[in-house]
């Protein structure tokens, strides 16, 4: 399990790459980042939250839960121009078509994301399997990915919708992050995960008040706001406690990772006819999912000029598979609902060796009819194996 592997380090190597920061230091830390990089962080937008560029620490909404909108939109935007074209016309005749490939937002790089949750950070590793694989390299996606560093904030208080521990992650999971910030009580621990992460923090130590390397944290040397001076080892123990507490909040394991073998034989199972029924067929789940990545490519043109756009699409819509002939291989909501579950928990595993779910719970939070993927999986798991595969 990827998630727990990362934290084993705390027992052994100890303080290397770990810093400590007082809570009051956060604003200075953020402003330090903002002074050096283009920082994206959670901001409030009329009752919802999303990652957006920030120009001062005051704009940042220190997340208590995942943002309403997923981190994926910084890498796979809802709509992006792939190329622009112009058809030359003269005397009513169609001439040359001039095509200009669009720059994949390179001008916006490099960027630093602050305040991603471990589930969102992990989702990027899953998207990488699709857009940066040996089979296919997506220039736009890769340019954004390479140009973006991720500073996550560990989840000390997971919400009622969270089930990351069932999907291979965890509230303190480091996968996909360059740096992770952990609330361990009255101070933050800041852990460097990658070299890029080390580079991010390089200029901040000693500049930001209340921020220093754990190795320099001497006995009796408390930070502002820190109630008890703690030794590095004690801080690492506090971290373990915080992590265990957070994991304990997340309820029982959901059969998410182990179900792919069983699902293989369940395509025609009658249980789908029951499971899908309340689904309304909207795409709130898919669009807010940090790993759903299906898209449509369309031309938007007026007269002789236009552009080719790639935009989010979702398997929950009938249009997604509608053929020009009028035939639709996924004619109803049952087939479309089944597709989404199968893609996430069976096909993606088959193709990419992991499930396409990080347990962020956005689909649970936002489903208008409380279709809870946890109970869907539990139901699929509970269906008798004997009836699985019946046609």
């Amino acid at each position: 399990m990827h998630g727990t592997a990362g934290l084993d380090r705390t027992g052994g190597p100890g303080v290397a790459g770990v810093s400590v920061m007082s809570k009051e230091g956060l604003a200075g830390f953020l402003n330090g980042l903002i002074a050096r990089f283009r920082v994206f962080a959670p901001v409030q937008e009329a009752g919802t939250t999303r990652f957006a560029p920030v120009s001062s620490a005051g704009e940042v909404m220190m997340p208590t839960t995942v943002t309403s909108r997923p981190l994926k939109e910084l890498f796979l935007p809802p709509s992006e121009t792939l190329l622009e074209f112009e058809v030359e016309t003269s005397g009513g005749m169609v001439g040359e078509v001039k095509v200009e490939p669009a720059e994949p937002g390179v001008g916006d790089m490099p960027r630093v994301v602050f305040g991603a949750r471990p589930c969102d950070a992990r989702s990027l590793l899953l998207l990488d399997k699709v857009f940066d694989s040996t089979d296919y390299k997506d220039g736009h996606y890769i340019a954004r990915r390479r140009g973006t560093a991720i500073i996550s904030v560990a989840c000390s208080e997971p919400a009622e919708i969270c089930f990351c521990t069932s999907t291979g992650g965890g509230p303190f999971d480091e996968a996909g992050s360059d740096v992770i910030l952990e609330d361990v009580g009255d101070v933050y621990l800041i852990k460097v995960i990658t070299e890029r992460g080390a580079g991010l923090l390089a200029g901040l130590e000693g500049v930001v008040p209340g921020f220093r390397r754990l190795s320099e944290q001497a006995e009796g040397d408390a930070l502002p706001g820190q109630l008890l001076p703690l030794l590095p080892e004690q801080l690492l123990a506090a971290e373990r406690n915080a992590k265990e507490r957070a994991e304990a909040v997340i309820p029982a394991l959901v059969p998410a990772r182990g179900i792919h073998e069983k699902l293989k034989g369940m395509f025609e199972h009658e249980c789908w006819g029951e499971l899908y029924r309340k689904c309304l067929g909207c795409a709130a789940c898919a669009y807010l999912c940090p790993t759903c990545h299906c898209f449509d490519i369309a031309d938007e043109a007026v007269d002789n000029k236009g552009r080719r756009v790639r935009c989010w699409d979702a398997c929950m819509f009938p249009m997604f598979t509608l053929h020009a002939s009028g035939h639709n291989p996924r004619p109803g909501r049952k087939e479309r609902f089944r597709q989404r579950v199968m893609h996430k928990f069976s096909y993606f595993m088959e193709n990419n060796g992991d499930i396409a779910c990080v347990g962020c719970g956005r689909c649970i939070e936002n489903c208008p009819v409380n279709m809870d993927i946890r109970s869907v999986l539990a139901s699929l798991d509970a269906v008798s194996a004997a009836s699985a595969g019946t046609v």
Partner: protein
Amino acid sequence: MSDLLGVSGIMSGIGGMNNWKRDSDVNGAAANEAADRVAQDIRRIARKLLSDGEVDVFIGYGQGTLPSRVTPVFITRPEDADALIWDARCENDLVVYLPGIEGKAGVVVKGCDGRALARLLAEKQVERDRLKIVAVECAGVIDRKSVKRDGGNRVHLHPSCQVCEERTAPVYDFLAGGATGPVVPGGPGDKSGSRDPFGEIREFEARASEERWNYFSQEFDRCILCYACRQACPLCYCPECFADRATPKWIGKDRALSDKMVFHLGRAIHLAGRCIDCGACVRACPMGIDLRKLTRKMEKDARELFGYEAGKAAAAGALPLFASFTREDPDDFIL
């Protein structure tokens, strides 16, 4: 009346199921008993309808997976009727499932859902003789989003419930639990005239044109085109929505603000004289877009210009607003 009884106890309810499901949070202790009576009656009726073969499926509410949520359930066996519940969290408009349903169906309807059903009957989208309508005298549903926004410290009725004028369906076969008690002033069914149901719209109309434009631009810019509003709407039953059409392509694929606005304007105009303000669209919207600012405006104008009230008991079977006319309709805006 918008902060119906600021009940601080709800905070504990977020942890445990119990407080969330109590009507007493919004309507006082007596409402608890009334809700229990309604729930028992719904179960009794469903059980009987299913065992007598009067319906093939009974659509009602069951316990959801989060303390704040219930979930639509489709009951096909009499012994499963015990899963049916009724309380102030039963927000979904179940009528959305009726067009195209096979066989005979029973359905639980609040006042607004009943108005939606009346429209579907008038528009010939469902067949009356294949339906068993189980009405409840609704005391309003909790607006879980605003409760969450307030950190769980206050309980609000859904905005639609605060301006609801008819709390019981215009047509039904059963009234589960019978009459639940007098109308709460300012709550669902209050027709006393002590409040202006369109006050919020009037206030908005009075603002400057640019201010309104900026407001709607910000609201619709958040739209992610997930179409949850459309899918949750009981009156959006078109087999192919104009937004999905390729020829002509009404809505561009590139998610320009203009496209998002045309979608929402198009939807509003299609709902003119049809929207019954169940609030399903705003509850479904994951981006919290103020969709009722448009649909309530259409309702208000239909009433002011044509005296038209969609799905109300007095005119439940009326022809659609845009399929009828009078010679005396307003003409003063025409050159």
